[in-house]
């Protein structure tokens, strides 16, 4: 791609590191330079934090699989990308913050909700939700913001129904989810939003304990009751994680996927001729955008050598998966979007025991969206040029803020 400029790297080992994407989706040029010259590098983040940046695919996989790297975000050495340290909260440690052996036990308690079979059973309902939102778009004014009309409400409704969270409250948690992934949000605001969500989910869990419901939260309550006492804090923490994770991820992938396929109509046409290839295309789109890169951090809890570099206990590590997903050692023409690449060996869902629990739900939603949106709105096109779009370069999850489309 012509817009990637590679400048010579200074000899200074603690190089300042920007996290802002360019191009607009590609990792910053300096991340690539690191991958080529120092795949495990000491860097200084814009917030002043000095951490290790890991850019090679192989090393990222190794670290994410190694229990000597902790997921405990509340450890003082854990890297953060916000300007200030995230505020402390009363929220019980979430699944993504746990280490073994607690992590394995906690994950296994909810794993059964996300088996391929269970997720596939949601297919007809997801199709219906997608179709209803397209019906509403077709009946409404043009241009319309795809994010608000489609990309956000579809996965939002899906996760709400799965969890058993009333969709009527969607504005409440959609705005709060957005605050939680906005790296410029003030710590006091983040603290307030976490508190509001905890209260909301606490009330919801308490109501479900009174009147059992057949949804993920209801089933978790029943499951905990069978094995002893209901741990409300545990359920609030789980609901918190799944609700946020279900909002800011698939929604951004839907917008970015739509944009890139509209920009490359030959690739879209090839997909429409062979819908059996959609799942492989989804995999490649996940790799190409790697939207949740900035959520991948660890802190070493022992001295560990990675790629000939010693990482000491207590030091923070950032796994730059977007750059790892463009590693030429693993992917040929890695900067190209090749929908027929057929490689699943990417890091978009992370790696190791914490790998995204909802990955098969995300795959299915994206598959249904791709197979439906362009078929039902064949004239779909961006209503503004790409350089007028605002990308979420300062968010934990990359995406498009507003995407006006017409047809």
């Amino acid at each position, binding site marked *: 791609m012509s817009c990637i400029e590679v400048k010579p790297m200074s000899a200074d080992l603690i190089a300042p590191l920007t996290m802002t994407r360019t191009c607009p989706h590609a990792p910053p040029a300096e991340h690539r330079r690191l991958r080529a010259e120092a795949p495990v590098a000491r860097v200084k983040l814009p917030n002043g934090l000095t951490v290790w940046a890991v850019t090679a695919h192989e090393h990222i996989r190794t670290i*994410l*699989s190694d229990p000597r790297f902790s997921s405990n975000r509340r450890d003082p050495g854990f890297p953060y990308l916000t300007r200030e340290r995230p505020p402390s909260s009363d929220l019980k440690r979430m699944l993504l913050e746990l280490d073994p052996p607690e992590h*394995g036990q906690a*994950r*296994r308690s909810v*794993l*059964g909700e*996300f*088996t*391929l*079979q269970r*997720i596939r059973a949601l297919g007809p309902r997801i199709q219906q939700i997608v179709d209803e939102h397209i019906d509403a778009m077709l009946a409404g004014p043009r241009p319309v913001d795809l994010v608000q009309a489609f990309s956000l409400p579809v996965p939002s409704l899906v996760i709400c129904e799965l969890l058993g969270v009333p969709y009527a409250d969607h504005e409440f948690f959609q705005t709060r989810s957005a605050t939680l992934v906005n790296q410029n949000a003030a710590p006091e605001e983040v603290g307030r939003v976490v508190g509001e969500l905890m209260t909301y989910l606490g009330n919801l869990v308490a109501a479900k304990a009174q009147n059992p419901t057949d949804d993920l939260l209801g089933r978790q309550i029943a499951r905990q009751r069978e094995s002893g006492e209901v741990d409300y804090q545990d359920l609030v923490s789980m609901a918190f994680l799944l609700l946020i994770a279900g909002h800011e991820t698939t929604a951004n992938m839907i917008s970015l996927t739509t944009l890139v396929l509209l920009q490359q109509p030959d690739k879209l046409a090839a997909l429409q001729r062979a819908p059996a290839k959609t799942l492989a295309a989804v995999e490649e789109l996940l790799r190409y955008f790697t939207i949740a890169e900035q959520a991948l951090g660890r802190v070493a809890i022992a001295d560990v050598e990675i790629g000939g570099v010693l990482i000491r206990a207590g030091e923070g590590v950032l796994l730059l998966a977007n750059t790892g997903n463009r590693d030429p050692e693993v992917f040929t023409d890695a900067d190209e979007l090749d929908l027929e690449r057929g490689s*699943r*060996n990417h890091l978009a*869902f*992370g*790696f*190791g*025991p*914490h*790998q*995204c629990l909802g*990955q*098969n739900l995300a*795959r299915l939603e994206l598959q249904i969206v791709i197979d439906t949106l362009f078929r039902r709105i064949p004239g779909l096109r961006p209503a503004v040029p790409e350089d007028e779009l605002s990308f979420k370069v300062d968010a934990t999850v990359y995406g498009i803020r507003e995407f006006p489309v017409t047809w």
Partner: protein
Amino acid sequence: MRVLIDENKCCGAGQCVLIAPRVFDQRDDGIVILLDQAPPKELHAAVREAACVCPGAAIALEERE
């Protein structure tokens, strides 16, 4: 090819089931089930891929030429 699985390492991502559904399945609780410990040659590439992308390194392969 002989396939070995380690249930303790399985983190239930389900990728093996997606890639090689004739060789792997999941229990109701998400943990891997091995359907065929000596899969036929035409499935070897898929099984190798499943082992490679398994996030928990729960799939081991013994290959003899």
